């Protein structure tokens, strides 16, 4: 059942991104869409409204970039729960550490192994 919702919710979030790309002015590039998504995800997560979506759709909520914002926001909030105000500084990046490190390492390795094809 979670597979069905993963597909539907993930697809729906991408559709929202597609509409933003197609219907806004040329000044709103795909980079702007990504920033909007990660910020919106963090805000919705801070309000406690993103976790139910994760429970329902699993990867459908965590894989899109809103899920990354959710990860960062929850990390910061949990950091505050455990370490007080300093946790707001350490918690966010700590929770996303695996994803960021993977992106840096695999990105660098790919750049060494491949040549762009143009």
């Amino acid at each position, binding site marked *: 059942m*979670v*597979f069905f919702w*993963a*597909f*539907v919710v*993930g*697809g729906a*979030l*991408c*559709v929202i*991104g*597609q509409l*933003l*790309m*197609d219907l806004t002015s040329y000044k709103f590039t*795909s*980079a702007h*869409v*990504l*920033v909007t998504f*990660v*910020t919106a995800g*963090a805000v919705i997560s801070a309000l406690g409204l993103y976790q139910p979506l994760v429970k329902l759709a*699993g*990867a*459908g909520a*965590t*894989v899109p*970039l809103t*899920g*990354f*914002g959710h*990860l960062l*926001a929850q990390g*910061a*909030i949990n950091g*505050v729960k455990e370490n*007080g*105000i300093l*946790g*707001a500084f350490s*918690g*966010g*990046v700590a929770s996303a550490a*695996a*994803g960021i490190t*993977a*992106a*840096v390492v*695999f*990105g*660098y*390795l*790919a*750049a*060494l192994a*491949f*040549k*762009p*094809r143009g």
Partner: protein
Amino acid sequence: MSFKLYKDRSSGENETEVGKVSEAMISEKQKKEYAEIVKQVKPKPRVWRNMFWAFVVGGFICLIGQVFYNYFLRLGLNLNEAGAATSSALVFLAAFLTGLGVYDEVSRFGGAGGIVPITGFANSMVASALEYRAEGLILGVGARLFTIAGPVLVWGIMTAWAAGILYYFFR
């Protein structure tokens, strides 16, 4: 008390304002009229077609993520570890496909379906790194890794920090 912006040697005056650097020849009215013509001639994006493929491609990538997640859970990782492993696995997949020159086709076709998932984030980092290898491993690959992904991290981290601070003061 006025601020002296510049001194004109030949006229000997002290100016406090500059005139606008603009093309006085073409009026705003002409520009608006032309913009109207452009809007008529410009082809409209195929919104429904794009939405459909964004849905299918994005949904499919999330499905693959779910398959990975369940697999990692079955391997015995706890919820958080499985989440981190899934992100890493998807990032690896996207990096590999970007290196092969295949991932840009996924996004060209699927639009937001390829850009919005974390695989799109990984693609942006790898594409930049790959491209600037010609400029060396430190200032080329090293510096350019974050040209597209940077804004995402900056805004995500700032928003999360704000969430943490607000939580601290308002819980």
